C-alpha cells in the first residue's frame, strides 16, 4: 500500500521545523538576521514608522502644553479614544503572554517559533497602552504620586485602593514588569549565542554584558528551566487577571451597558482574539521579509487562525448574551442602551464591530482560509479593526446618552486624538522593527529543543 509511505505521526503533526534544519543552521539563520544588513523592506517600513512615532511625541507635547481639552473627551463622553486605545493595546499584548506562558504549560511545542516575537509585541503594546492613562492625567511627571502609593509632601493623602482604577494601575504595571522579566530570561541563552558568534569587539562586549556570562551548563539550565516554568505559571493567572481588572473599570460602575458580570471573561477572550490577530499580522510580514518560512510554518499560522476562530466565536457569543440579558433584566435603561448601541447614532460602529469580529473569523472554519497567507493577513487586519471598534462601542454608546436626555451628546475625535492613536502605531512598529533588527526574533535555544524532539521522533526513539 502506497499510503504506508506517509508516516501517520507526521501526517497528523507536520514537523514544526522544516527544510532539513540542523542545530547550527537554526543558529545561523536566526543570528544572521541581527548580524547582516536589514532587507530593503525594513527601511521602507521604518521610513513610515519613525515619522509616525515623531507625530506621537508632537501630539503628546501639544497635549501637555494645552491640556486635556485638545482631545475630544467632554461631557457626556468623558472617556473617549484614550481609554479605547488603552484597552485595545493592552488586549493586543495578551496574545504574547498566552503564547509564552499558557501554551508553554499546555506543552504546545508550536509556540517556540513565535513566542519571542509575540512577547516583544506584548511589551511594546503595553508601553503604547500606558501612554494613554499617563497623559490623561495631564501632568505625567506628577502621575507617579497619583498612581502609586509614593509618600510625598505634595498631596499628604493616599490612593483609594477600593477603586478599580487603582487595581488597574497595579495590574498593568505588574503585567508590564513580569512580561519584561519573562522576555529577558528567555533571551539570556540566545544573547550568549550572539556573544559567542560575535567577531566585532563592540558587539561582543554588548552581548557579553547582556548575556550576563551565561554558559549553558547543566547546573544553570536546571535553575533556568524551573525559573521559566514558575514564570509561566505566574504569568498565566496574571494575564487572565489583567484584562479582568481592566474590565472592572467598567463592570464595577453603575452604567447600563457596563454594569455586567460577563465582562471579565468576555474581555479576556476579546484580548486574546485581538492579540492573535496582531501576531498573525506581524508574523506573516516578518516571515516574508526575513524568509523564515521553514521556522514559522503554515502549521504555526494555521494554529493561530484556529485560536482566532475559537476566541472570535466566544466574543460573538458574548455580544449575544449581553443583548439577551438586557432584555431578560426587564430594566428599561439596560434595554435602551443596547437598542441604542445597535440602532442608535453609533450603529455604524456597532455593525462594523459585528462584521469584523463575528463574521470575519468564521472564514477560518475552512482550511483554505486557514492556510492562505493573504486571506489570514486580510482577516487579521479586519479583526484588529473590529476589536478597536468593540472598545469604542462599549465606551461611547454607554456614555453618550445617559439618564438625562438634555445632556445627550455625540463623541467627535479631534486631530490630536487621531494623531496620538496613529502615532502609537508608529511607536509600536518602530520598537518592533528595532527588536527584529537587533535581537534574536525567534527563541534559538527553544527551537533547538523542538528540533531535538523532532529528530528523535523521526528516528523512532521513544521519548
Amino acid at each position, binding site marked *: 500500500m502506497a499510503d504506508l509511505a506517509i508516516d501517520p505521526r507526521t501526517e497528523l503533526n507536520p514537523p514544526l521545523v522544516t527544510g532539513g534544519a540542523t542545530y547550527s543552521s537554526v543558529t545561523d539563520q536566526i543570528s544572521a538576521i541581527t548580524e547582516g544588513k536589514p532587507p530593503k523592506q525594513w527601511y521602507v517600513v521604518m521610513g513610515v514608522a519613525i515619522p509616525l512615532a515623531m507625530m506621537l511625541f508632537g501630539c503628546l507635547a501639544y497635549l501637555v502644553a494645552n491640556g486635556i481639552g485638545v482631545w475630544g473627551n467632554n461631557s457626556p463622553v468623558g472617556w473617549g479614544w484614550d481609554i479605547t486605545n488603552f484597552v485595545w493595546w493592552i488586549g493586543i499584548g495578551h496574545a504574547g503572554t498566552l503564547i509564552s506562558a499558557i501554551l508553554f504549560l499546555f506543552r504546545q511545542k508550536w509556540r517556540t517559533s513565535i513566542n519571542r516575537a509575540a512577547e516583544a509585541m506584548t511589551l511594546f503594546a503595553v508601553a503604547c497602552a500606558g501612554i494613554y492613562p499617563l497623559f490623561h492625567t495631564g501632568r505625567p511627571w506628577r502621575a507617579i504620586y497619583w498612581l502609586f502609593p509614593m509618600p510625598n509632601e505634595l498631596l499628604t493623602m493616599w490612593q483609594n485602593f477600593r477603586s478599580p482604577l487603582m487595581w488597574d494601575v497595579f495590574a498593568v504595571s505588574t503585567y508590564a*514588569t513580569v512580561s519584561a522579566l519573562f522576555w529577558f530570561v528567555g533571551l539570556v541563552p540566545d544573547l550568549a549565542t550572539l556573544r559567542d558568534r560575535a567577531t566585532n569587539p563592540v558587539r561582543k562586549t554588548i552581548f557579553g554584558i547582556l548575556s550576563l*556570562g551565561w*554558559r*549553558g551548563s*547543566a547546573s544553570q539550565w536546571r*535553575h533556568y*528551566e524551573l525559573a521559566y516554568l514558575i514564570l509561566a505559571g505566574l504569568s498565566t493567572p496574571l494575564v487572565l487577571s489583567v484584562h479582568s481588572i481592566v474590565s472592572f473599570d467598567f463592570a464595577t460602575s453603575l452604567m447600563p451597558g457596563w454594569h455586567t458580570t460577563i465582562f471579565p471573561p468576555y474581555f479576556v477572550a476579546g484580548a486574546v482574539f485581538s492579540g492573535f490577530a496582531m501576531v498573525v499580522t506581524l508574523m506573516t510580514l516578518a516571515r516574508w521579509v526575513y524568509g523564515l518560512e521553514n521556522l514559522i510554518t503554515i502549521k504555526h499560522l494555521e494554529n493561530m487562525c484556529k485560536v482566532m476562530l475559537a476566541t472570535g466565536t466566544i466574543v460573538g457569543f458574548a455580544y449575544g448574551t449581553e443583548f439577551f440579558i438586557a432584555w431578560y433584566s426587564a430594566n428599561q435603561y439596560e434595554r435602551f442602551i443596547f437598542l441604542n448601541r445597535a440602532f442608535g447614532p453609533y450603529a455604524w460602529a456597532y455593525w462594523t464591530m459585528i462584521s469584523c469580529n463575528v463574521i470575519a473569523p468564521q472564514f477560518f472554519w475552512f482550511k483554505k482560509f486557514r492556510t492562505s497567507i493573504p486571506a489570514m493577513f486580510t482577516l487579521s487586519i479586519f479583526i484588529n479593526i473590529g476589536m478597536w471598534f468593540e472598545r469604542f462601542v462599549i465606551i461611547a454608546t454607554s456614555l453618550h446618552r445617559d439618564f438625562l436626555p438634555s445632556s445627550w451628546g455625540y463623541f467627535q475625535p479631534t486631530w490630536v486624538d487621531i494623531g496620538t492613536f496613529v502615532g502609537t502605531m508608529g511607536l509600536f512598529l518602530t520598537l518592533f522593527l528595532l527588536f527584529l533588527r537587533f535581537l534574536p526574533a525567534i527563541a534559538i535555544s527553544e527551537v533547538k529543543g523542538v528540533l531535538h524532539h523532532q529528530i528523535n521522533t523521526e528516528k523512532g526513539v521513544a521519548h
Partner: protein
Amino acid sequence: MATSLLARLGLPGFGKETQKHYGVIGNFDTPEDLLRAIRTARAAGYSKMEAYTPFPIHGIDEALGERRSPLGRIVIVCAMVGLTGAVLLQWWTGAVDYKLSIAGKPLFALEPSVPIIFELSVLLSAFGAVLGMFALNKLPTYYHSFFNYTRAAGASNDRFLLAVEATDAKFNAEDVKTFLDSCGSRHTELVEA
C-alpha cells in the same frame, strides 16, 4: 565584603585558590552521545562533572546526580512577602493613616483588596524567580575558566560538551583525556583555570 563580592563576580585575582587547570572538556555530536558519556563517566567513578549544552537536555540532571533546584522555595517566600505587604499597604493607608469614607463602604475589607493582593504577590514572586535564578546561577559572572576552552562557543550553537573538573578526586589530565576520547569526544582539551 568587597573582596567576596568581587570573587563572586569571578573577577580575576579574587578567586578562592589559584588552581592551574579547570579540567578536561570533551566535545560530543548529539545529546544522546553526551548522556552516554556522562553515564559511563559516573560508572567509572568521576563525580565533579559539568555539561554545557545549547538547550536543556532532559535526563541530564539525573545523569549528573544533581538535586532539584531550590528556586521554588525562594519564590514561595517572595509570594508571601508580596501578599502580606499588599494587605498591610491597603489596610494601613486606608484604615489607619488616611481614613476617607466613600459611600459608607468599610475603610478596609478583604474583597476589594483581592486584586492588589494578587498582583503584588505575582510581582514579588516573579522578581523572586528571576533574581533567585540569577543568584543560584551566579549571574552575572564576569569570568569563568570554561571559556578558556578553544571551542567553548560550540556550547551555544550545536555542540554538547562535558567537563571533568580538576577538583575531582580521581582527576588525572591524561587519563581523563583518553577516557573522553574513548566515549566519542571529537575534540578533547585540557583547559586552563
